[in-house]
């Protein structure tokens, strides 16, 4: 296993952990933050796989814009899952 | 290649560009926008008619976009299945015709142009979907008509419609994702996206497991889009709570796209002997049978007219799935004919139900008692449509079911005929309830007594479609003759039968 593979594996583990945590999270604001973390991890993976443009998009959309939209929605509904 | 082939991409570009321009040109000018949309739809219809005449005089029309020969570029094909465009465009014109008064009454003026934009984009997406000869292109057009459909459902105000649209969106997104996954798997297997190219390459693909997975994803994805029974749960709410012209569009046309997808899938995998098509066929037969019975029973227990119609769509999609699953030439041509006929019948029924809803504000069948005296033409159109839906002999609903029954005999599955009959009887049961309520009961609601006949722009499509629904069965032989080569192509390419 080359160092590259180790890096990939670590990010993938982080991704799965984040995904599970988002699904289980009752605090929706925390879920949104975790979703941003997930996107950043994915972004690292894109860079590592040689797709810097996709990574840029992922960073802007996944970690930035989506989070803003989610927070706006949360401000109108409520933070806890019922 | 004749220069007429250039018209093929126009069936996509024309409505979509008109839809994109609509909000820019006609902000807050609903009526002008309606004229614009109607003109665009009629023009698209004229385009398809020209293509159709070309198809009749020669072989299928294929158009390589950008001049890149397939599989390197994207190809659009106007074959027998894509000729369904003719029906899509014609019915869209009628739906738009009926939509004007409904939109004026229910959609705020600042959003009317957006409504027409979504309808036109939806039409362009469906046209592209039926003509796509490229897997990824198929997915893109599926997204176009799906996204506009979700929004159109959500346009009806109120929590029921919002929830229904959300459910539709979530289920639809999952099915789209499955199709996308299948496209990726097939591309990884063959390195190509052109469907006929992939079909040939699949036979020597190295990973049969991946092919099987792709087939499974495609079938489940399109079964959801076609609302075949256990995967139909999103349909009744979405179709019943949408604005009525949208209900007509969804129930008449958009669900049929799932059937087109299933047929394309079947053709795609016909040469790949790794995957047993017989299993798929049996699955379709069983799901179809269950859908026919369950849809009819569920329609029977409903109290709201539009919900009854929506469940009847579930049952009718069952007939079509059954016909394709039986996989004999007459059953498949019956299924294809029923696709066309059911589109006509159900569009008419939903448009008529929309007129009633707009004129009286009432939706429950019990509340509509005595409406036959106040709105004779609209009620009459509804009755004719219902009779056609039950499949009483000379009507349009009869032809497809009869052909499917014949096909069942050929396939040696005579028991299926019993199911078809039972489905028809159950449909007759709730149809009689509606007819009884409309014509043979005294009015119970003040709004029925004060109701007036629907405006002409709504009456014309309703009556026209009702007359078509009843009389088109007489021309059944013509339609069957048209779909027969296609049915043979679908079944004949298959080694299992």
């Amino acid at each position, binding site marked *: 296993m080359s160092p590259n593979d180790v890096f990939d594996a670590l990010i993938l583990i982080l991704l799965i952990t984040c995904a599970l945590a988002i699904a289980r999270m009752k605090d929706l604001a925390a879920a949104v933050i975790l979703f941003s973390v997930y996107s950043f991890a994915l972004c690292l993976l894109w860079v590592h796989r040689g797709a810097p443009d996709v990574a840029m998009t992922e960073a802007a959309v996944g970690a930035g*814009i989506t989070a803003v939209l989610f927070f706006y929605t949360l401000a109108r509904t409520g933070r806890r899952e019922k | 290649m004749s220069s007429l082939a250039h018209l093929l991409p126009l069936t996509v570009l024309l409505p979509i560009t008109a839809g994109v321009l609509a909000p820019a040109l006609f902000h807050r000018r609903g009526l002008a926008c309606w004229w614009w949309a109607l003109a665009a739809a009629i023009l698209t219809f004229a385009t398809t008619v020209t293509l159709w005449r070309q198809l009749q005089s020669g072989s299928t029309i294929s158009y390589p976009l950008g001049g890149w020969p397939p599989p390197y570029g994207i190809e659009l094909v106007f074959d027998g299945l894509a000729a369904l465009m003719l029906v899509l465009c014609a019915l869209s014109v009628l739906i738009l015709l009926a939509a004007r008064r409904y939109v004026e009454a229910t959609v705020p003026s600042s*959003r009317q142009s957006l*409504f027409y934009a*979504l309808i036109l984009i939806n039409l362009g997406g469906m046209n592209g979907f039926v003509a796509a000869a490229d897997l990824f292109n198929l997915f893109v057009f599926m997204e176009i008509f799906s996204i506009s459909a979700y*929004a159109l459902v959500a346009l009806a105000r109120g929590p029921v419609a919002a929830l229904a649209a959300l459910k539709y969106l979530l289920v639809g997104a999952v099915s789209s994702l499955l199709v996308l996954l299948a496209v990726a798997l097939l591309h990884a297997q063959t390195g190509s996206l052109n469907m006929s190219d992939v079909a040939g390459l699949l036979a020597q693909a190295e990973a049969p497991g991946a092919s099987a997975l792709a087939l499974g994803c495609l079938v489940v994805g399109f079964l959801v889009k076609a609302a075949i029974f256990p995967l139909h749960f999103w349909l009744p709410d979405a179709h019943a709570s949408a604005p009525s012209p949208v209900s007509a569009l969804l129930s008449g046309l958009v669900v049929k796209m799932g059937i087109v997808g299933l047929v394309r899938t079947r053709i795609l995998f016909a040469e790949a002997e790794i995957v047993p098509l017989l299993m798929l066929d049996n699955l379709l037969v069983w799901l179809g049978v269950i859908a026919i019975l369950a849809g009819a029973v569920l329609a029977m227990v409903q109290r709201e007219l539009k919900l009854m119609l929506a469940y009847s769509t579930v049952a009718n999609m069952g007939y079509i799935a059954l016909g394709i699953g039986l996989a004999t030439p007459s059953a498949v041509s019956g299924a294809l004919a029923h696709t066309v006929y059911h589109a006509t019948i159900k569009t008419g029924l939903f448009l008529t139900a929309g007129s009633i809803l707009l004129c009286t504000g009432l939706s429950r069948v019990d509340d509509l008692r005595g409406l036959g005296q106040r709105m004779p033409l609209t009620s009459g159109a509804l009755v004719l449509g219902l009779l056609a839906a039950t499949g009483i002999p000379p009507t349009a609903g009869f032809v497809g079911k009869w052909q499917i029954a014949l096909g069942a005999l050929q396939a040696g599955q005579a028991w299926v005929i019993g199911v078809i009959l039972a489905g028809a009887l159950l449909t007759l049961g709730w149809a009689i309830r509606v007819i009884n309520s409309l014509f043979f009961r005294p009015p119970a609601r003040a709004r029925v007594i004060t109701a007036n006949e629907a405006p002409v722009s709504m009456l014309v499509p309703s009556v026209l479609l009702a007359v078509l629904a009843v009389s088109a069965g007489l021309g059944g032989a013509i339609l069957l003759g048209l779909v027969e080569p296609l049915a043979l192509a679908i079944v004949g390419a298959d080694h299992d039968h």
Partner: protein
Amino acid sequence: MRNALALLIVIVLAGLMMAGVSQLPPPGSPDGAVHRHVAAHYIDGGTEAGGAPNLVTAVLLNYRALDTYGEVVVIFAALVAVLAVGLSGHSRGPRRQPDELPVSPVVDRIIRLLAPFIALFALFMILEGHVLPGGGFQGGVVLGALLILLSLVLGPRRIRRMLPTPALFWTRAIAPLVFALTAIAGLALAGWLFALPEPAWLRELILVGLELAIGIGAALALVGFYLSLEADHHD
């Protein structure tokens, strides 16, 4: 019970998917079917025939132009959907409006300092997509993120004033419209819809124009989603 059932379904589905995918050649392996058939053809003759030094751009805007057109329409349809459904009109009762927090002078200055650089970078990404990784969608997303950031800091009203309101729908529709024009120009000059006409400079010009239109369209769509969530937005 329901959780256990869901878990079981997820595990079975994941197992099926893995079983299916495991038979495929490893990603990036040169003898995978992906790299032998169509892709190999693109790589062989792609850049000259495709009209762009960046192969991805050539495939996206030339070989598979109809797909990209479809994606642009999907974005536009989603924007129209959000505007038509009008999220802002749906909420009932008084909105929880936070008290107006005056813009911090520090943040204001810094944003004004950085915004031109970010905009420049977005433009760079859009145009650079012609030769290097990047392109209309990616640059447009950066531009959209910048506009949303500005609107967060300076307030949505300022942003709405920055966008040309009367012509807003023309600007929003720019990507599908430019695509449609390209398609027709292709028919007129090269004989096929969506074909790129011959002189190399014209071809490059069209590609750059398309990228710019896609970028502006994507940015405005993102801003549109954001503004439709804004409290005082009535289109």
